[in-house]
């Protein structure tokens, strides 16, 4: 579904992504792991068009999407959540998700239908999946950190993506909140048939949900394969141990 080939990106001479390769098969949960500063977030920003690649290719559903603007990539069926909370702070929980649903249906240029009558059921459906129905009329600022992180993902799902990218969905969360997210990821993958690409620090979570793992080290893909192969891979062990040592 998603192919990344020999992707490169430098910031002021620093090679953040040197040679990233990734293949995400349809219907699977794929995780990108790597030590801090390995370039995981940069890779995500390149895939979703928030950064421009220096060279290399990104293909989504056999279409070249390298360096397209983010809004076009979203309309092709790829949505993402962010590592830091990135929501619409003055809107209610409901409106946060509704905005995303409206944009997906290309109704964001509709001027004269009151939005409180549009796509209500579609929005409520998304909120239900994420257990946010009770909170829907709250200003999103008033939510707890954990709930805001959940909303963060709900907004992405409002785009009805075929591929969902989750950038450290459990960063800063309690273990109980983390379990909730794990359940959600499994639900989205198994019940909704979503293809999911995830970066995560929590190795337990990664090996729990991922069917395939790609390891990024200093901007380079050093391994890609099944979780058990990655666990036994010498170069991966070196990369992690090297950092620890």
């Amino acid at each position, binding site marked *: 579904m998603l192919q990344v080939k020999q992707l490169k990106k430098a910031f002021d001479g620093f090679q953040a992504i040197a040679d990233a390769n990734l293949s995400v098969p349809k219907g699977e949960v794929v995780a990108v792991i790597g030590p801090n500063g390995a370039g995981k977030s940069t890779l995500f920003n390149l895939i979703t068009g928030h950064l421009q690649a220096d060279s290399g290719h990104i293909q989504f559903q056999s279409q070249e999407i390298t360096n397209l603007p983010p809004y076009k990539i979203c309309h092709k069926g790829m949505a993402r959540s962010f590592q830091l909370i*990135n929501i619409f702070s003055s809107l209610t929980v409901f409106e946060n998700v509704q905005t*995303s649903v409206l944009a997906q249906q290309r109704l964001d240029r509709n001027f004269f239908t009151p939005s409180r009558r549009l796509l209500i059921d579609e929005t409520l459906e998304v909120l239900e999946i994420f257990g946010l129905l009770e909170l829907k009329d709250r200003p999103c600022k008033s939510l707890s950190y954990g709930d805001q992180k959940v909303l963060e993902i709900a907004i992405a799902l409002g785009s009805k993506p075929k591929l969902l990218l989750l950038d450290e969905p459990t960063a800063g969360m309690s273990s109980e909140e983390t379990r909730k997210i794990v359940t959600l990821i499994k639900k989205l993958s198994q019940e909704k048939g979503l293809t999911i690409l995830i970066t995560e620090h929590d190795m337990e979570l990664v090996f729990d949900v991922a069917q395939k793992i790609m390891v990024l080290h200093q901007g380079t893909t050093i391994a890609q394969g099944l979780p058990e192969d990655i666990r036994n891979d010498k170069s991966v062990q070196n990369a992690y141990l090297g950092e620890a040592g």
Partner: protein
Amino acid sequence: MSANNLKSMKSPKKLSTYLGWAFAVAGVLILLVAPTILTQYYVYLLATVFTTALLASSLNLVLGNGGLLHLHHGVFFGVGAYTVAIVMTKTSWPFAVAILLAPMVASLIALVIGWFCVRLRGLYFGMLTLALGQLVWAIVYRWNALTNGDNGIHAIPVPESLSSINSVYYTTLLVLIISLIILYMITKSPFGITLLATRDNPVRSESIGINVKSHRLIAFVIAGFFAGIAGVLFVLVERSVAPSLLFWNKSAEILIMCLMGGLTVFMGPTLGAGILVLLSMIVGLYTEYWLLVLGLLLLILVLFLPQGILGYLMESYDKRRSMRGEN
């Protein structure tokens, strides 16, 4: 959960919505009978308030809802007014053409200026609106053949039916009400909600499929259109135009009106326009230093009432309700 259960989750209308409408209807009724009580001068003053209120409200679509630091909205107002003036004095075209052309020319200029500005962010956006706006001012100021330069255009002919101050009063009031209703609908439409989203978080907006630049440009052009309409009203009230309409200090005044009333409340700019126009008249009776008073007002405002007067009132109203445990 079934579809029926989901339906029951829909939000009820808030009491404050009904209260808002009650205030609006009462206000309109008072304004409808006002000319029978007031002297001509005050009728004229109120017509000026209506014109300015439309101008400030159109700015707030970009400033408050769009979060864009638009520093020179007066340009579109001036272009609208000049379009009417030029058509009525230099051509033999009918008045109807002049008033239709004015908002269109204003929004065309907004399209050109906005096309450049939406590429920039924050203060840079603001500086470019200022620079390009002053460019338009310079053209109006210098193009003697078309605009009469710094003399302006005076004694602009208008139809017989609009010659009395009372008919001007009712026309400006009607146009203001219709325009405010349309602007209100726009802020509550998907376009309006999406505009708030681009203000809160442009990066996230892009990634949920919104073309932020073009969304902002559309808002900018709509604001220019309504500023152009306000320009038409200005000509009806004053019958003359001058380059000072397009000078940046006029735009600063509109900006302060929005701040004063409150950027986050729809009627905020209208309230701000009312206060500032009436205040400048009263201050004008005693001193020439209106700008000094304006500066002091701005100081008090940003220090003690950053959310604006109406913004503050709404906030404390919401707070009291939530303390009583209501919705």
